[in-house]
């Protein structure tokens, strides 16, 4: 058959040719010049639109691209001038006035004016935008009503009912509902960053169907931050290049930065260990102990608490005595020292320690775990359980499927069974199912965590008001609600903190949540990286980053190397350093034509690892 004979000769050739063609197509442009700085962002970002996201990886990417009224100090997180060069707060703490700098530009050359901020805040608060973080701006007068009072999903009030005004092109004024001590901190928070109106409106015109994706495309997006997007590859990287229009571009050191989307902790660590990545946010749990002495791993307290929610609507867990007994029996110290191992701190309160002006209300506990266990046994007997009393029904510890959560749950279940005779089973669910179960309070005891968005106890205490969306325990207490409400309207900061503390005291007395430990940051970064500091919010600010030269690195090491427990490691990055043009050491580089910006980290000529370790 002729057809078959032809097919026999043509098909294999055609197949091979198409495979080859496909291969060339797939790898086109895949070979990249290494970026000056590469960090792992942990996953693919959901979007680059500052208004509509809530995640940590998104925040990192957005801080590369946009800048709000204020920025935070990379170490202390105190507010520093951003687009606003100065600001005033009225004596009653209700009115904030920001004066915008005149030299702030968008990457398309337009000036950044108060009108940009007005439009962006309106867009952010508009219920149609559906910004998940809209409530962060509800401290402004009229903002909550503007977002939440809707008809057919659209705002019923005009934006003029919201207390944000622009008296002139370079002034922006906020009128708040109540004094909000962390308002300046909020203004440095990425959802408050402006977007370019022309950028979005042009996309809407040109791509009526797909503008929601199109305005954020690298070729369309307009930014006002230190970097712009060069390209994006889903599940691979975002390549950022320095934004020459940025007002402070002279203080930005890196020309190119890559944000990788490596999800596997082990792979991220491997990339770091081979110098292909210079900062990873979480190393694999099983190597934490080896990392601890290294100079590039410095866990510090992080604004987050790991705790168990208790379903208080269901006997026997509706009895506060039982909850207290359960809480006292949790071997917090063992969990921190033998399970999590990165220096986590046992927690007896919901609010993480170390917030300025706030003293935690801790759950009452004894000097030792043994004393706590004895007290717990007494409480159980008082509640009518144990020898001679009722038998305690089997309860379930509910957690989302993850090894770390399982190990902690095992330790706790074991302690409950050993000391209180409670039979606790483990129940793991896939993430979304777990969230569903938790919101419907369909569990007995459920693993939870909360990371603060801003450094104020209100951020945590606010969760457990009666009927709150994030309460998820069925617990409610009128006194607690009143204290939280009154604190929000209190003018005197000291009194306000005292009220929040009183509220927390009620919470740790009734224990609808069992605090377990406070988080620590786990970022691991090249010792050569300057302008980068571990901090309590684990937030990092690209405009400050640079590479130290050998001299500065040696000075830095002299500062911490006196300690026996500190082990010097290979410092990835160019040995000559990479300083911003405004830095004295940066000028030399600029005067040279063709600076070696893309020099790969030296792989083989690095010093032996332990050369300087210990003395």
């Amino acid at each position, binding site marked *: 058959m002729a057809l078959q004979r032809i097919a026999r000769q043509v098909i294999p050739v055609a197949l091979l040719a198409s495979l080859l063609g496909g291969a060339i197509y797939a*790898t086109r442009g*895949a070979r990249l010049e290494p970026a000056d700085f590469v960090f792992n962002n942990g996953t693919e970002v959901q979007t680059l639109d500052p208004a509509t996201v809530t995640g940590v990886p998104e925040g990192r990417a957005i801080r590369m691209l946009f800048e709000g009224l204020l920025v935070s100090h990379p170490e202390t997180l105190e507010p520093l001038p951003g687009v606003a060069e100065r600001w005033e707060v009225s004596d009653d703490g209700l009115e904030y006035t920001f004066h915008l700098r005149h030299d702030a530009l968008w990457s398309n050359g337009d000036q950044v004016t108060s009108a940009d901020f007005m439009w962006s805040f309106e867009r952010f608060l508009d219920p149609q935008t559906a910004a998940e973080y809209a409530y962060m701006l509800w401290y402004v007068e009229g903002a909550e009503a503007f977002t939440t009072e809707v008809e057919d999903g659209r705002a019923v009030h005009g934006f003029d009912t919201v207390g944000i005004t622009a008296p002139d092109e370079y002034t922006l004024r906020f009128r708040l509902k109540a004094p909000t001590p962390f308002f300046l901190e909020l203004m440095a928070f990425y959802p408050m960053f402006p977007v370019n109106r022309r950028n979005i409106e042009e996309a809407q015109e040109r791509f*009526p169907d*797909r503008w929601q994706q199109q305005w954020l495309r690298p070729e369309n997006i307009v930014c006002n931050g230190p970097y712009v997007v060069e390209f994006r*590859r889903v599940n691979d990287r975002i390549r950022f290049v320095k934004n020459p229009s940025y007002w402070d571009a002279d203080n930005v050191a890196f020309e190119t930065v890559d944000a990788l989307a490596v999800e596997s902790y082990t792979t991220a660590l491997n*990339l770091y260990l081979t110098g292909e990545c210079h900062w990873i946010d979480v190393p694999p749990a099983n190597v934490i102990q080896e990392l601890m002495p290294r100079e590039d791993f410095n866990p510090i307290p992080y604004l987050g608490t790991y705790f168990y929610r208790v379903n208080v609507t269901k006997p026997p867990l509706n009895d506060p005595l039982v909850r207290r007994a359960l809480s006292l029996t949790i071997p917090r110290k063992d969990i921190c020292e033998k399970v999590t191992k990165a220096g986590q701190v046992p927690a007896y309160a919901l609010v993480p320690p170390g917030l300025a002006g706030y003293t935690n209300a801790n759950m009452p506990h004894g000097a030792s775990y043994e004393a706590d266990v004895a007290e717990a046994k007494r409480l159980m007997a008082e509640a009518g359980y144990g020898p001679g009393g009722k038998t305690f029904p089997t309860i379930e510890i509910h957690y989302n499927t993850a090894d770390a959560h399982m190990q902690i749950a095992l330790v706790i279940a074991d302690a409950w069974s050993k000391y209180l005779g409670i039979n606790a089973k483990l129940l793991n669910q896939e993430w979304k199912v777990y969230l569903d179960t938790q919101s419907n309070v369909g569990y007995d005891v459920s693993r939870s965590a909360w990371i603060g968005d801003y450094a104020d106890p209100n951020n945590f205490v606010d969760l457990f008001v009666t009927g709150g969306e994030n309460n*998820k325990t069925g617990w409610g207490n009128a006194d607690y609600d009143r204290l939280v409400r009154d604190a929000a309207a209190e003018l005197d900061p000291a009194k306000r903190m005292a009220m929040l503390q009183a509220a927390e005291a009620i919470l740790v007395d009734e224990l609808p949540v069992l605090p377990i430990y406070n988080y620590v940051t786990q970022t691991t970064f090249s010792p050569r990286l300057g302008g980068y500091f571990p901090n309590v919010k684990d937030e990092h600010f690209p405009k400050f980053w640079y590479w130290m030269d050998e001299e500065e690195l040696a000075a830095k090491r002299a500062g911490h190397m006196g300690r026996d427990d500190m082990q010097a490691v290979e410092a990835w990055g160019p040995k000559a350093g990479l300083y911003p043009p405004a830095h004295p050491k940066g000028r030399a580089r600029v005067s040279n034509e063709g600076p070696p910006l893309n020099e790969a980290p030296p792989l083989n000529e690095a010093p032996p690892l332990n050369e300087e370790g210990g003395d």
Partner: protein
Amino acid sequence: MLRFLARRFLWFVITISTVMTVSFFLMHSVKGGPFDGERKLDPVIEANIKARYHLDWPLWRQYLQYVGPFNLDDQRALAAFDEEGGFSLWRSEGAEGEPTRAFGGVLTGDFGPSFRYKDFTVNDILEESLPISALLGVLSMMFAVALGVSAGIASALRPGSGIDLTLRIAATGGIALPNFVIASFLVILFVFLIPLLPVAGWGTIQHMLLPGFCLGLVFAAYIARLTRTGMLETLSADYIRTAHAKGLAPRTVVMRHALKGGLLPVVSYLGPATAGILTGSLVIEKIFFIPGTGSHFINAATNRDYTLAMGVTILFTVLVYTLNTVVDMAYTLLDPRIKLEDE
């Protein structure tokens, strides 16, 4: 041949629509939605997000909208007069007067916006990741066939010998060892102990060696076993004895006569194997940080990214179906006794 293709195409339509329908409703019946997070949303915000992606519609309507070709957006009419009195078919306006599309959905080749990666459409994501997965798959398949077939022939020529035994043990090992174990071992060996290759990433030939090897190894092992069995059977056939009797060189007998018949089981295995390489590449993609389609297959489901999960499922169905058809056609090329029309 044409009748065969027509019949295959009919079944293709039935298969695709079944897969699409079942997975759509399965996907939506799983607990938890794409926009559930640790932080509960304000009810107004949540309602508006859902409305944007039509998740507030009844499921049947979401399904029709997804499949297409007609766009079921609100205020749509079969035909409409615009304000100036002009008449337009399937082109009407949304609530704010902005034009909306008349056609959409899978039938027009539009898989919709990704619910998770909001800056991309599903088409964007698939266009970007599929060539990468395909290249990785092709490389490892070529490697698997080359290694597997040679090992299989070597075994079959001297059954029971030391070579045969060694190769069979190696093949069993290749099947038994999961590819992530092999991957970890190779990373330690070729990245950390002997720094030859990059540890992960995508872009150059060096980046493809380790993942291609790990992904192909298990298939090479299967192919080696299939080749051995097929060759043993063919080598004892009458026409091979005839070929020997004619005085042909043993090499010619094996390569020209025996191999064609002996490879039939391998060819039939290639269809499912290719499917396995595509869907099974997710572990390798994760370990070696390769932005392919495999990882979307799982991630989209866990993220409840309905459109992306559906897109990947449909894409894989099409690929598997097409590849199986190609394999069936390849049969006739290898063995003239098989005719497609007889099916």
